């Protein structure tokens, strides 16, 4: 069996077991991990596969969250249509912004995505319709009574988030393995060659940007439901920075790495903050160690471990 399948199986079993045996707090943590995993996987498609390291991914997360809130409380839509609106809003923003930003590379791309993230934050912060810095409530979770789920129950909501994380993985994994995904990897490895072969590079980058935004928007919509509340905090640049750290720690360009990263970072954050008030320091130290000693993050470390095993036998 491949490392990928084993890792996937372990993650599913771990998620299932923690869901079955944890209490309220544990299920809330699981929900948080699932949401961060979707968010991180979406960024991985951009940063890991296509080489577009964005520092403004929170914009799409935030627009998803606010889209959820606004669709519910301003348009009076139900939970599932509101989620569709949230995802569509994130994709629409990505399409508009993307036309401009996909032309930029490297540090310029990082700076423009950061700037766009800040613009969206500033706009939401000032917007009266969206509650300004007070944020917005009135969010409804979808009604899944037909399949026996009561999402207002934390256990059912955790399950909902986990299933969506799993489906997001399947979808993004399919994209990554498709000809389209292969071309994204090719663009990452040599943009000039891809172009010389006839690939309209900007259009592919735009496609990746919109797909990534869709899943970031989905994560945002879930985050809004989790808290029943959204605020401009969802859109701050540190949210973009944190998710990028999760992707790097987990291992770029693997999709499963960011899932591991989401779990490890979330758990560490909670465990360390219980033990010490200096938890951010130790979390930072952990990041530094991973980046220094684990090329391609935790998933990369697993891959090397497996290779060494095989070489030994």
């Amino acid at each position, binding site marked *: 069996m491949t490392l990928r399948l084993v890792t996937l199986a372990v993650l599913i079993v771990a998620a299932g077991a923690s869901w079955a045996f944890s209490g309220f707090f544990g299920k809330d943590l699981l929900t948080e991990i699932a949401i961060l995993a979707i968010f991180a996987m979406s960024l991985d498609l951009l940063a890991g596969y296509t080489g577009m390291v964005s520092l403004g991914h929170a914009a799409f997360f935030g627009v998803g969250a606010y889209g959820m809130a606004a669709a519910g409380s301003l348009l009076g839509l139900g939970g599932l249509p509101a989620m569709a609106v949230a995802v569509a809003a994130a994709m629409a923003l990505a399409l508009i912004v993307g036309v401009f930003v996909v032309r930029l590379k490297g540090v310029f791309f990082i700076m423009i995505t950061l700037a766009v993230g800040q613009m969206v934050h500033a706009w939401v912060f000032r917007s009266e319709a969206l509650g300004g810095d007070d944020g917005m409530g009135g969010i409804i979770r979808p009604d899944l009574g037909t399949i026996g789920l009561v999402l207002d129950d934390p256990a059912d909501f955790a399950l909902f988030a986990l299933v969506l994380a799993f489906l997001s993985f399947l979808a993004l994994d*399919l994209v990554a393995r498709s000809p389209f995904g*292969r071309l994204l990897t090719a663009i990452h490895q040599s943009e*000039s060659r*891809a172009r*010389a*072969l*006839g*690939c309209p590079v900007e259009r592919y980058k735009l496609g990746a940007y919109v797909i990534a935004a869709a899943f970031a928007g989905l994560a945002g919509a879930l985050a809004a439901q989790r808290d029943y509340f959204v605020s401009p905090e969802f859109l701050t640049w540190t949210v973009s920075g944190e998710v990028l750290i999760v992707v790097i720690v987990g291992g770029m360009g693997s999709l499963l790495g960011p899932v591991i990263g989401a779990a490890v970072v979330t758990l560490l954050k909670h465990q360390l903050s219980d033990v010490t008030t200096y938890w951010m320091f130790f979390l930072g130290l952990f990041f530094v160690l991973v980046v220094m000693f684990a090329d391609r993050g935790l998933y990369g470390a697993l891959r090397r471990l497996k290779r060494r095993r095989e070489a030994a036998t």
Partner: protein
Amino acid sequence: MTPSLEARSLVKRFGALTVTDSLSIGFERGARHAVIGPNGAGKTTLFNLLAGALRPDAGQVLLEGEDVTAAGPDARARTGLSRSFQRNNPFPDMTVAENLETALAIAGGVGRVFWRGFGHYRSLAEKAREIAGSVGLNMVGDTIVRQLSYGMQRQLEIGLALAAAPKVLLLDEPTAGMSPEETEAMRHLIAGLPRSITVVLIEHDMDVVFGIADRITVLDQGRVLLTGAPEKVRDSAIVRERYMGSGG
């Protein structure tokens, strides 16, 4: 007959330096046309102008009679213009087979399919094996390109350019940095390309040039010094004096 590829009064300046100086040149269909000239004559700039990697300050580029001056390199590639690079420029972390399959996927227009695995397109793998064989890489299909020898990466350059099924093939110093054996193999490979492809070649190795080319253009300071059959160029006093005199 309209040339396969044509440049009309191309001008390219970098700051005060005019690298391409109202240069006109035509490449006939099926030709083996070499472009030679001393370093700094503007050969690679001309290539980049032809391929669309650079935009000219004035003048036109025509591909199969159509004005493609405004078209980017990807659009030109889609209409049948393919190039190799002076410095190896493959997808370094993919295998040889994956490189060629990717090139074929781009050329075949299946790149926008995102709902189905790459493995679905078996014919690409078959075609990739064929091309790998034709450029002498059939034994290393599963090798990561980064781990290939320099010469083999050079061969892959040609393979990638061929995967786009070009009408016109621009080869930028295909034998640069190669050993004599590798150079000979490359000469053989280029000589064996189908005659339906117009081959435009920048090359420093005069044995390769005179072994392959049926037409030679000498560039000097961004202008065409001379165009003609190999014998004519070989016998030209001005070329001997300016270029081939120094051990060429």
